[in-house]
């Protein structure tokens, strides 16, 4: 779902807004959440099934989860920053409903920013599990 604006149309070709257009950006943060979630789940499942057993302690698995979380949050914050930059590009504030590639660019940035916020909260929620739960039981 990328689009190269290389064909005839009226927008100024030199503005980044007109040159760069992709829907994928808005999915980056939720994807980071999903990968983080899966990694946490798989790590814990393998840890409890194959490493320490049913009533074992999570121990180092919690450190791993903490590490995943830090990496995921950094990714989400970077994506959010990118989204914010796009959102505040040039003049114009939400709701970004103008018929121009600038506003479309700002809108996609805005949606990216919002989704990053949600993804961050959801990631922290998942990570909280490892704060309060110490054993496999």
């Amino acid at each position, binding site marked *: *779902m*990328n*689009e190269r*604006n290389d*064909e005839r*149309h009226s927008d100024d070709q030199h503005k980044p807004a007109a040159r760069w*257009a*992709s*829907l994928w950006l*808005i*999915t980056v943060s*939720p*994807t980071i*959440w*999903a990968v983080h*979630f899966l990694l*946490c*789940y798989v790590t*814990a*499942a*393998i840890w*409890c*099934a*194959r490493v320490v057993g*049913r009533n074992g302690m*999570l121990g180092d*698995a919690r450190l791993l989860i903490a590490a995943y979380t830090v990496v995921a949050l950094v990714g989400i914050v970077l994506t959010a920053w990118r989204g914010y930059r796009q959102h505040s590009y040039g003049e114009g504030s*939400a*709701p*970004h*409903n103008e*018929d121009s*590639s600038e*506003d*479309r660019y*700002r*809108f*996609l940035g*805005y*949606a990216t920013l*919002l*989704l990053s*916020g*949600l*993804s961050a*909260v*959801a990631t922290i*929620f*998942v990570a*909280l*599990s*490892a704060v*309060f*739960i110490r*054993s*496999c*039981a």
Partner: protein
Amino acid sequence: MTDSAAHPHDPADLERQKAQEARLAIPWQAPKGWRYWSAVNNTEVGQWYTTVAFVFFLFAGVLALLIRTQLAVPENDFLSAGTYNQIFTLHGSVMMFLFGVPIFEAFSILILPQLLGARDLPFPRLSAYGFWCFVIGGVFVCGSIFFGVAPEGGWFMYPPLTTAYQEGIGADIWLLGLSFIEIASIAAAVELIVGVLKTRPPGMRINLIPLYAWYILVVAGMILFAFPPLIAGDLLFELERAFDWPFFDHTRGGDPLLWQHLFWIFGHPEVYIIFLPAVALVAMIVPTAAQRPIVGYGWIVLAAVGTGFISFGLWVHHMFTTGMPGISLAFFSAASEAVAIPTGVQIFCFLATALAGRFTKSTPMLFVSGALAIFVLGGLTGVMVAVAPFDFQAHDTYFIVAHLHYVLIGGMLFPVTAGIYYFFPLRNGKQLSDKLGKIGFWLMFIGFNVAFLPMHFTGLLGMPRRVYTYPADMGFDVLNMVSTVGAFVFAAGVLVVLFDVVRPKGKQADSPRNPWRAGTLEWLAQMPPRNWGVRSIPIIKSRYPLWDQPNLMADVDAGRYYLADAEEGKRETLITSTIDSRPIQCLRVPGPTWITLWAAVFTGGAFILPTYKLYTAALVSAAIAGVVILAWLWTGTAQIPEKPEKDVGLGLKLPLYASGPKSVGWWAMFITMIGDMSAFASLVFGYFFFWTVHEDFPPDPLPGPGLTWPLLAAGLAIGSWALTLLARHLNRRDAAVGFYLSLGLAPVLTVGAAAALFAGPHLSGLDPTTHVYPATVWVLVLWTLIHFGIALIMQLYCIARRAAGRMTAVHDIDMQNVGLFWHFMLITVLVTVAVIAGFPRVA
């Protein structure tokens, strides 16, 4: 609009418009008489689809009333245990598979082109095929109850109850009948994604599309990741039932929990697949009622996309009581809490829109308000059951029955009814009755709450779900009686609405155009609407063009925009770019045909006949279906137009043919293969699932499939893939000899790769019925072999197309799509080989 706008009443101009209208009407008219059923246009197919989905809804509703009658008093003998179990199984299955999901697809097929100012969806025949599959599969599944052989394993079909402890063909009917329908659902999802991305009107950039389209995009995307795991699960399940491959049999290393994972990876997103489109309807109705644009468009997009993602992290909350490690429960509990946030955001966007606007009451809004009251309660109980400890009590009780009905009826049925009242004029130009609507609403609203509010309490008092009877002294009696009374009141309300919909409206005056003074494109429709959809395809500059673009309706009607004419007498619609919606192609869409019906009939045979163990007949049916589908592709797709481009109006010339990423077919292939990959990933998940739960998986010493044969298969597949890409390249350069050479050699390698892959487990003597390890290896091999079969046919098809002159250097859609398929084919082979041959050496 342009120069002609200067003379709106110029007689010559009027004459020209009339002639255009007459020409436009010809290709778009529906076939007459019995041929009517060969129609493929979205207006016809969408209407049939919607109607049939509602018929299934009414059927499942009657089943619900039977359930409530049985439970009205303790120790009732109105239904036998066996019949009751069939009825509740079918009630759940029909509501979810034959109403909940299809109704949104049906409704979207009907309405999406209107919303986007398109003439039709890009693949009308695919919609028709999906519809016929849906009808055949649905009738097959529902009909089973009349012969007393309906499935009785619950809509979740947990093995080993359903694999080894229930006789009869009920489970097969469920598995095969519904798998068949799932394929139709995926077909519709492909159609709708491409529809949203590629058939928007010029100027409707991604920040301007109607919210409904955003939701459809998200939901159709979710289908691609949610339904394939179930199809994979169904495959394992049917292999166990029919051929005794022990995936879920613990005595041979299987595990019943694998099914639960696969089922709920599908099952939980499915709830959102049902719920989000209903919110989408609300997102269309509320701004109209408030007479202002939605407040928080970006927030709603956030909510739709966010829900779509997070809904895939909830599945284990249906498995909280299976004794998984506490930490696993915690992760899923956390995600289940998090998903409430985007849901809340949507509700507050609607409230904020009402707050900022000048709100007017209407029957659709009445249903929306009812939906809000019910859904918020269902959402709150949802948050409760997301807290794992509370779920330990609530799970599998009437509390959950209450919760899910609050969510689904409040979150789906009420909004859908609102949608019926709101959009009904688009069907035949008549409005529904406000009076009947109000009566229906209050009966439904009161009946619903009387029926389901007490169930929360019944559940916490200890009544489990799926019990056909209960003893008298448990405190359940009064509550159940109240619920039954409520259910019948609710049913009366549904009947009132139904009557309003079906009552003859011949004498009733046509609705005015745009009766609700809405701002979105679907209300450009004339009353009664015409088959062509919009008179001409407008240029869009706003989220609410009817409010913000002065004179839009008159200009559209006067044919002052694109494709106002059909000079060649062909069905045409505009294809635009995905983000900024710049016109890139004039797409010829196909007209009426019977071939889709035949394809559906024989596909149905391939799924239905195995139920009765008629495997040969099923294979024959599948082969005929394959031939019919090939004939359909051969005659109806990638046709070379008579000229390279045409004038679509306003001085714009667009190509009539596009291939590669610019063509809708390429997108459809890409999206379909994403779904295919997620089914494959589910099978691979199965392999690693067994690895985590069993010490002896893969077994030591390893019985097979060895390293040599799988590696040979991988090597040959890489060769075939490379030759296919080379052929694509040579075709582009019009190097015919090279093309035929490379694409002639490629099928040989394909066959060789398939044979080598088969040889691995076969020669090492892996018997899939002995243990889950050989069964899991074989299922991955089987999956890949089926794909090799399809890949082979594709390679031969491209040779034939070029030989027949239907594919040229420029007109190479087929070759482009086959090349794309082969990328995914290669991933499938390499992953299969890595897993079955490589992983045991690492583990």
